[in-house]
C-alpha cells in the first residue's frame, strides 16, 4: 500500500494499492460512485478466479506477455474496480516504442477478450523524443475491466485514441492513467459508443516540467446506455498545460451520461495553463446528462485556469434553418449532431482516425454511408 499525499478537500484518490481488501466494495454513496449503477457493475467489482485474459494480435511495437505486477507500468490501482482487474489480469498487452523513433503509421491494438468476463492490462510506453499514434480498439462482446497504463517519455509526442464500440449489452470499466514526461506532448481521446454500462477514468500526471496534455472525448449514448467519464488531471510540476474537451450526445428513455472533470493544481505547479470543458446535447426529453467540472487551485501563480460545462437541448431554430433549405428533418438532425462532434474530432491528431470515428458516429446516427463519405469529400 502507498498512501498518496493529498490536501483534505481534494478529490484525488487517497490510495494506490494492489491489495483488493484495501478498497471496500462501493455502495453507491461514495463521491466517486454516486452516479454509477453499482449493482450492474457488481460482476467486475468482485474478484473471480475464473476471469479470462484480454490479448491482441502481436505486430510492430505490439507484444502480449504474461501479466507481471513487477513490470506493469507507472501506475497502481486507485479504486475497487481497478484492483479487481489488476488481481485478475492474466496477460499484458504491451506497446513499446523505443527512444528517438518516429512512427508514421498508427499502431492499432485490437483488444480481444478470451471469455465473457475478462481483465485487461495494456501498457504503453513511448520512449524519449519519439513520436507515435496508438489506437486501442475495444469492441466489446465481453464484460471487461482494466487499465491503459500510458507513459510518454521526455520530449515525446503521443497521439492516442481509446475506442469503445460494439454491442450494447456489455459492461466496461477502464482506467487510463497517463504520465507525461518533461516537455512531452500527449493527446488522448476517448470515443465511447458501445457498451451498456461504461465507466471510463482517464487521468494525467506529469513526470517533469513543460508537459502538455490534451484530453478529448466524444460519446454517443442511446437506448438506456450509461456512459460515465471521470477525468482527473493532477498538476504537480511547473509550466505544464492541460486541455480537456468532452462532448456527448444522448437520447432515449433511461439513457444517462456522466462527466466529471477534476483538475487539481498543486502548490508547486506554478505557471500552469489549464482549461476543461464538457458539452452535452440532449436529443430528446428521455435522456439525462450530469456534468460536474471541478477545478482546485492550491496556487494562484498560474497562467490560466478555467472550466465550462453546458448541457443543452437540440436547437429547433437550427433544424428550421436546414429544413427551410429543403433538407429533410432526419438528415438535418444527423448534420447537426455530426457537426456537434466535428470540432473535437478534428483535434484527435489523426485525420485517418477522425474519418473512421466520424463514420462510426454517422452509422450510429443512421446516416447513409455514401452521404457521410460525400460530406468528408467536400470538407
Amino acid at each position, binding site marked *: 500500500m502507498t498512501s498518496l499525499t493529498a490536501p483534505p478537500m481534494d478529490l484525488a484518490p487517497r490510495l494506490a494499492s494492489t491489495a483488493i481488501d484495501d478498497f471496500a466494495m462501493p455502495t453507491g454513496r461514495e463521491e466517486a460512485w454516486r452516479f454509477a449503477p453499482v449493482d450492474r457493475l457488481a460482476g467486475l467489482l468482485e474478484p473471480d478466479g475464473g476471469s479470462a485474459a484480454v490479448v491482441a494480435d502481436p505486430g510492430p511495437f505490439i507484444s502480449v506477455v504474461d501479466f507481471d505486477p513487477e513490470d506493469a507500468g507507472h501506475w497502481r490501482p486507485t479504486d475497487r474496480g481497478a484492483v479487481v482487474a489488476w488481481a485478475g489480469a492474466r496477460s499484458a498487452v504491451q506497446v513499446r516504442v523505443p527512444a528517438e523513433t518516429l512512427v508514421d503509421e498508427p499502431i492499432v491494438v485490437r483488444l480481444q477478450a478470451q471469455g465473457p468476463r475478462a481483465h485487461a492490462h495494456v501498457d504503453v510506453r513511448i520512449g524519449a523524443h519519439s513520436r507515435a499514434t496508438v489506437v486501442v480498439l475495444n469492441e466489446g462482446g465481453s464484460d471487461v475491466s482494466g487499465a491503459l497504463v500510458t507513459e510518454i517519455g521526455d520530449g515525446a509526442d503521443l497521439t492516442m485514441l481509446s475506442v469503445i464500440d460494439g454491442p450494447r449489452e456489455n459492461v466496461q470499466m477502464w482506467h487510463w492513467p497517463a504520465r507525461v514526461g518533461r516537455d512531452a506532448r500527449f493527446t488522448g481521446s476517448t470515443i465511447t459508443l458501445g457498451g451498456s454500462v461504461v465507466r471510463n477514468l482517464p487521468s494525467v500526471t506529469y513526470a517533469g516540467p513543460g508537459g502538455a496534455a490534451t484530453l478529448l472525448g466524444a460519446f454517443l449514448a442511446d437506448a438506456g446506455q450509461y456512459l460515465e467519464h471521470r477525468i482527473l488531471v493532477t498538476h504537480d510540476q511547473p509550466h505544464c498545460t492541460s486541455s480537456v474537451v468532452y462532448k456527448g450526445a444522448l437520447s432515449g428513455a433511461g439513457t444517462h451520461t456522466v462527466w466529471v472533470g477534476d483538475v487539481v493544481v498543486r502548490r508547486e505547479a506554478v505557471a500552469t495553463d489549464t482549461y476543461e470543458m464538457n458539452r452535452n446535447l440532449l436529443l430528446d426529453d428521455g435522456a439525462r446528462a450530469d456534468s460536474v467540472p471541478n477545478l482546485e487551485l492550491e496556487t494562484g501563480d498560474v497562467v490560466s485556469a478555467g472550466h465550462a460545462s453546458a448541457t443543452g437541448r437540440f*436547437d429547433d*431554430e437550427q433544424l428550421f434553418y436546414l429544413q427551410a433549405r429543403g433538407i429533410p428533418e432526419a438528415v438535418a438532425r444527423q*448534420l447537426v449532431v455530426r457537426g*456537434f462532434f466535428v470540432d473535437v474530432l478534428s483535434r484527435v491528431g489523426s485525420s485517418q482516425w477522425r474519418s473512421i470515428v466520424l463514420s462510426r458516429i454517422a452509422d450510429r446516427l443512421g446516416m447513409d454511408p455514401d452521404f457521410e463519405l460525400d460530406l468528408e469529400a467536400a470538407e
Partner: protein
Amino acid sequence: MSTLAINDLHASVLTDGGPREILRGVTLTVTSGSTHAVMGPNGSGKSTLAYVIAGHPKYVVTAGTITLDGVDVLAMTVDERARAGLFLAMQYPVEIPGVSVSNFLRTSATAARGEAPKLRTWMKEMKDAMGVLQMDPAFAERNVNEGFSGGEKKRHEILQLSLLKPKIAILDETDSGLDVDALRVVSEGFNAFREETGAGTLLITHYTRILRYIHPDYVHVFVDGRIVESGGPELASVLESEGYERFVGNAPVAS
C-alpha cells in the same frame, strides 16, 4: 410560370400566455417575374408573414390558405415547402457549429435537385456563384453562419438562393445590418438570380433604400397584420417622404 397565392391568411404566435394573433387577413398573389415589396413599421407582422409561408413551427395558421401553383402549402412540412420551390432568405440566419458551408450547400442542393450534384461540377458551380457575390472561396470551409459578419450572413443567404433557384423567393429584411457596399453587392447578386430564373419575389423591408437596387413592380403597405394599401413603385416614394404614420393611424400595433 408559378403563382404563390395567399388568401385571407390569419396566424397566431404561440406564447407562454397562449396564442396571440399577428396576421389578420393577408391576401396577396406573387407570380413569376414579379417583385412585390411589403413594407411596414416594426411590429406590423411582416416578418411573421415570411415565417408562416416558410412554415416556422412557432406560428399557427388559424384561417386562410396559401397555395403554390394550386397546391396547398400549409399541408407541407418545412422541407417540403422548400423543395416545392419556396425560399426564405432569413433576417437572422442561425449558426450551425461543425457544418461547413460547403456541406450545407451541397446537402441543400441534393435535396432540391433530387440527386447529389457531381462533386467536380458542383465545386465549380459553387465557386462561380460565390464569385458573383464577391465571396472568398475559403468561405466554403467555414461553419454555417458561425462568426459571420452581418454582410457575410446576407451574402450567404443570397448564395443559397442562387444555387437552389426557387420559384418564389422571400427576402426578409435582407437589407438590415448591411452597409452601402454590402447592400449593393447583395442586391446585385439577387438581381442576377432574378434575371436568370425569372422567379417571383416577396421583398419584406422596413426601409426604402434596398428598393433603389432591387426595383419592385408592386409595393404593399403592411400594418397591424394586414395589407392596408397597395400600389406601384411610386408608393415607396410616398413612404420614403412621409413615413408610415398616415397608415398606422390609431390602429393598435402588434409588438
